[in-house]
């Protein structure tokens, strides 16, 4: 059975690549700022959702800490820029490092214990970091909210028009897709799947489970924080309640789950399908009915996890047929 696994080129699937190219062209089809705004948000959240998917989907460790990573990235970037004039590009990177620090704390504390401890610690962490920053910003003279001055310029990660933001987030999305794809070509793929299948057997087969989890969690945290930093520069205003919001995190988690966890395409599909709906919904129904959106998310979560745990991707897989899928799946886990 020639499966063309022996060349890197042979492992690149045409449909995903074409879809990504199509998404890349999307910003140039239509130039209405609102359209580009929705596109920017879609790319950004597909990016963050993909980062979340790395630890929670591929790693099998359901993380609720990403609100903390997102917020830490946002504040690092914002404060370094506003108070110290450091270019947000560097701020994004440093924010990413901040995310890694938080991830390491959680990892060292909980990776050797049952999974339940990890999940709980991530929830507690998000709330804790939220509390910490709220406390801090209450002491500061500028108050709870932080406004970022609008000085357009590439080094300030600030632009007069919408298009540059869209392009940047698209590049982010490409980066996370590439990272996940590369990871799947390495032995880490084997380790992750072994851990997911049977962690005890994996460790007895010599897999350094602790190190693998730390690595994946750190990468996930880094890119989520970068996403947060970008969000801060995009919004030009952040405050603890909104940036550390668990509700915001749940949104991109739902995107990944509905789209299909442990797949590269899942988070993207989930975001592309759900995010524009959310935006239109919010604009249409308005503030009073905002809870309705989350109410629906709750129902979606329960239905998906009970009926179609693999999300939309599982639906696509079953259309393609099990056997053809297994051969593809064991290659690049798409």
């Amino acid at each position, binding site marked *: *059975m020639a499966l063309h696994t022996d060349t890197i080129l042979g492992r690149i699937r045409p449909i995903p690549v074409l879809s990504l190219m199509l998404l890349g062209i999307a910003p140039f089809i239509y130039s209405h700022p609102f359209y580009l705004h929705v596109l920017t948000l879609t790319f950004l959240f597909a990016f963050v959702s993909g980062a979340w998917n790395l630890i929670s989907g591929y790693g099998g460790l359901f993380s609720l800490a990403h609100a903390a990573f997102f917020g830490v990235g946002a504040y690092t970037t914002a404060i370094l820029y506003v108070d110290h004039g450091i270019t947000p590009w560097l701020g994004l990177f440093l924010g990413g490092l901040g995310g890694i620090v938080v991830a390491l704390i959680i990892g060292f504390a909980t990776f050797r214990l049952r999974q339940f401890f990890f999940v709980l610690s991530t929830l507690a962490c998000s709330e804790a970091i939220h509390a910490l920053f709220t406390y801090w910003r209450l002491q500061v003279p500028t108050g709870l909210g932080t406004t970022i001055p609008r000085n357009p310029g590439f080094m300030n990660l600030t632009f007069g028009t919408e298009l540059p933001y869209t392009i940047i987030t698209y590049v982010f999305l490409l980066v996370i897709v590439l990272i996940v794809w590369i990871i799947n070509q390495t*032995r880490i793929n*084997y*380790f992750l*799947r*072994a851990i*997911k*299948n*049977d962690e*005890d*057997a*994996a*460790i*007895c*087969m*010599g*897999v*350094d*489970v*602790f190190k693998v989890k730390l690595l994946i969690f750190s990468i996930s945290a880094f890119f989520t924080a970068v996403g947060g930093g970008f969000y801060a520069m995009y919004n030009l205003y952040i405050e603890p309640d909104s940036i550390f919001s668990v509700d915001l995190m749940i949104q991109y988690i739902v995107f990944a789950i509905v789209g299909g966890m442990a797949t590269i395409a899942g988070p993207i599909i989930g975001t592309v399908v759900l995010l524009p709906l959310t935006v239109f919904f919010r604009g249409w129904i308005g503030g009073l009915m905002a809870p309705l959106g989350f109410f629906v998310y709750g129902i979606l979560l329960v239905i998906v996890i009970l009926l179609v745990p693999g999300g939309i991707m599982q639906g696509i897989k079953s259309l393609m047929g099990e056997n053809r899928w*297994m*051969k593809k799946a*064991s290659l690049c886990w798409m």
Partner: protein
Amino acid sequence: MDEKGKPLLDVKDVVKTFGGLMAANHVSFQVMKGEIRGLIGPNASGKTTIINLISGMYSINDGAIFFSGNRIDRLRPDVIASIGIMRTFQISRVFRDMTVLENMMVPSLSQGQTMLKARRRAKELLEFVLLETLMHEPARMLSGGQIMLLQIVRGFMNEHLRLYLMDEPFAGVHQSIKGTILRAISTMNQENGVTFLIVSHEMTAIRNLCHQITVLHEGEVISQGTMEEVASDPLVIDSYLGG
């Protein structure tokens, strides 16, 4: 590292308790390099507990375990694997959603072997046990006996393998696969000098395979020796073989 005369595995006065239950009660025994040792005893005598203690899955409450003179009882299971101790599980644990070939590659990859060499060695070993036709099947598609065989031969992928702990390798396994397993153990022992510690209820296999046998009962070692010596030991007859 281990001179002649010094044991490869030295279990010294090991105690393990779970709540109020003493699963291992001052268990001591030694296994010499190149031996095939049988570990037998009635159910709940502590055999699996000993395997779990040596492989690092459980931590001991008292005593010590030495491998090649080095203390290993505080090491993590993956570190223990890297120094050459592999194990199988009584209820086979393979990676069910990975293919047979991928299952095989995990131990090699975790030791830093390249994908190419790992794949090659895996194919060789699979041919050796006649599983190579199922190479690309997901492990969950295999029969019970094949899964046990996969589990066993996966351990052989460890290129530093010196001690192999097997927990009931023949349980529920078809006769022909049993023969393959016996052949694999003999070959690895005679040609590669791998030492084995085998837990089993299958007396015929134990008799044919094992040089020495250690008998456990209620967490204690009650007898040790060759099959003949152990079979005629009144303590053993009372608790396990006869009465």
